[in-house]
C-alpha cells in the first residue's frame, strides 16, 4: 500500500489539514484515519501546526437562528424528526424492539451480577475537602479514576452525609503542583458533581498535585471555599491478590 510510505503519509496529513485534497481523497483519508492511528496522529500534528493561522480571522456574530436550531436539535426526539407515517410506524416498531432488547440485557446483567461480583475499579487519587483546616470532618471527597484511554479519566464528588451539602454553583476547582506550587484550573466544581472527564493535561496536573482548592469565582485569587491534600492511592487489589 502506497499509504505506508512515511513521506506519502506526511504529505497526505498536511494536505488534509490544509484543505487541498479533493472531496473523494478527503473522505478516503478520513476512513484511513479511523483505522490507522499513526496517520491520525500526523493529522493532529498538522492541525496544531497550522491552527495559529486561524487567530487572524476577525470575529463575526452569527444570526440567532443558528443557536435556536441547535437547541431544537438537542430537544428533538427520534419521533419528531420525521412526519412520514410509515417511518413513524417503523420507528415505533424499532422502539419496542429496543425496549425488549434493553429488558433482556438487564435480565442478563442482573444474572451476571448475581453469579459474578463486578470488578471494582480502584480510585487513583483522593482529596478530602474541608471548608477550613480547623473543621473536624471533611465536607466532601473528590475522587479521580484513571480511564483506559487518554481523555477518559474522570473526577467525581461524594458528600459527607454527616455534614451539610452546599451549592457548588460558581465554584472553580484548582490543582496545586507539588513542586512548582503553580495552579491549574480543573473547571467548574458543579460539573464534577455529575461526572467530569479530564483531558490529558488535567490528569497530569492532578497526578502532580499536592492539594486541590475550590474558590468562589473563576480566579485563583478568589476566596477559598474548600481545600484538601490530594493523595495517590495504591491498588488494594494488588495487596489482596
Amino acid at each position: 500500500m502506497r499509504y505506508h510510505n512515511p513521506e506519502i503519509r506526511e504529505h497526505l496529513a498536511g494536505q488534509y489539514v490544509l484543505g487541498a485534497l479533493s472531496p473523494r481523497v478527503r473522505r478516503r483519508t478520513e476512513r484511513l484515519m479511523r483505522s490507522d492511528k499513526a496517520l491520525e496522529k500526523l493529522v493532529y500534528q498538522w492541525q496544531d501546526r497550522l491552527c495559529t493561522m486561524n487567530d487572524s480571522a476577525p470575529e463575526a456574530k452569527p444570526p440567532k437562528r443558528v443557536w435556536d436550531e441547535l437547541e431544537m436539535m438537542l430537544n428533538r426526539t427520534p419521533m419528531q424528526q420525521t412526519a412520514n407515517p410509515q417511518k413513524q410506524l417503523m420507528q415505533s416498531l424499532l422502539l419496542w424492539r429496543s425496549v425488549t432488547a434493553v429488558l433482556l440485557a438487564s435480565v442478563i446483567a442482573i444474572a451476571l451480577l448475581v453469579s459474578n461480583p463486578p470488578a471494582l475499579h480502584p480510585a487513583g487519587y483522593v482529596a478530602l475537602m474541608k471548608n477550613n483546616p480547623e473543621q473536624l470532618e471533611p465536607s466532601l471527597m473528590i475522587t479521580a479514576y484513571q480511564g483506559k484511554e487518554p481523555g477518559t479519566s474522570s473526577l467525581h464528588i461524594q458528600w459527607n452525609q454527616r455534614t451539610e451539602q452546599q451549592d457548588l454553583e460558581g465554584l472553580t476547582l484548582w490543582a496545586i503542583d507539588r513542586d512548582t506550587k503553580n495552579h491549574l484550573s480543573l473547571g467548574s466544581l458543579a460539573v464534577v458533581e455529575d461526572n467530569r472527564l479530564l483531558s490529558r493535561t488535567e490528569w497530569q496536573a492532578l497526578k502532580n498535585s499536592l492539594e486541590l482548592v475550590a474558590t468562589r469565582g473563576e480566579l485563583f485569587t478568589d476566596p477559598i471555599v474548600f481545600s484538601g491534600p490530594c493523595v495517590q492511592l495504591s491498588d488494594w487489589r494488588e495487596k489482596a491478590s
Partner: protein
Amino acid sequence: MQMTEDRLRKIEQYLSQIKLKDRAAFSQLYELSNRKLFGLILRIVPDREQAADVLQESFTRIWLNANSYRSDLGNAWAWLCQLTRNCALDSIRHSRRHPVTLLEPDDLDTINIDHAPDRNSSFDLHRCLSTLDTDKRNAIIHIYLHGLTQSELAARIERPVSTIKTWIRRGLLELQHCLS
C-alpha cells in the same frame, strides 16, 4: 475577543463534557467560540446565510462526534477549527463559489501573532512561513484561509495547476522541517 490560554482550557473542558452529552457544556462552548468560528467560516463561505448553515452543521457534528476528539494527540481548539473548516469546504464545494477577496500578494503580515494564545507556536509558524519563498507561502496561506482548491488558485493567479501542486508539496515539506 482573543483566544486566550484561559479560553483554550475552557474549550478543552467543555469538549470533555460534551463527550458525556452535557448540554450545558455544549451551550457554553457555543457561547465561547461561535463568533470566532463564524469569522473563520466567512473567509471560506462569504454568503452569511450559507455560512450560518455551516456553523450549525459544525456544532451538530461537534455534539455528535465529540467522542472522536483525542485530547492526547492535539489541542481541542485546533480540532474544532479543522472540523469547522471541513464543513465549510464541503459547503462551498457543493455550491457555486462566491468570489472571495484574496489577501494581498504577500500575506504573511496578515497573520497576527500578537494576541495568539500560544505565542511560541504562533511565532514558530510565522518564522517558518517567512522562510518559504513568496509563491509557496501565499499558496499555503490562500488555500488554508480561503479554502480554495489548487485549480481555483491556479486560475486566479494564472499559473498551471501542476505548479501550484509543486509549491504546496515543497512548501509543506519545508514547513514540516522548519517546525520540527
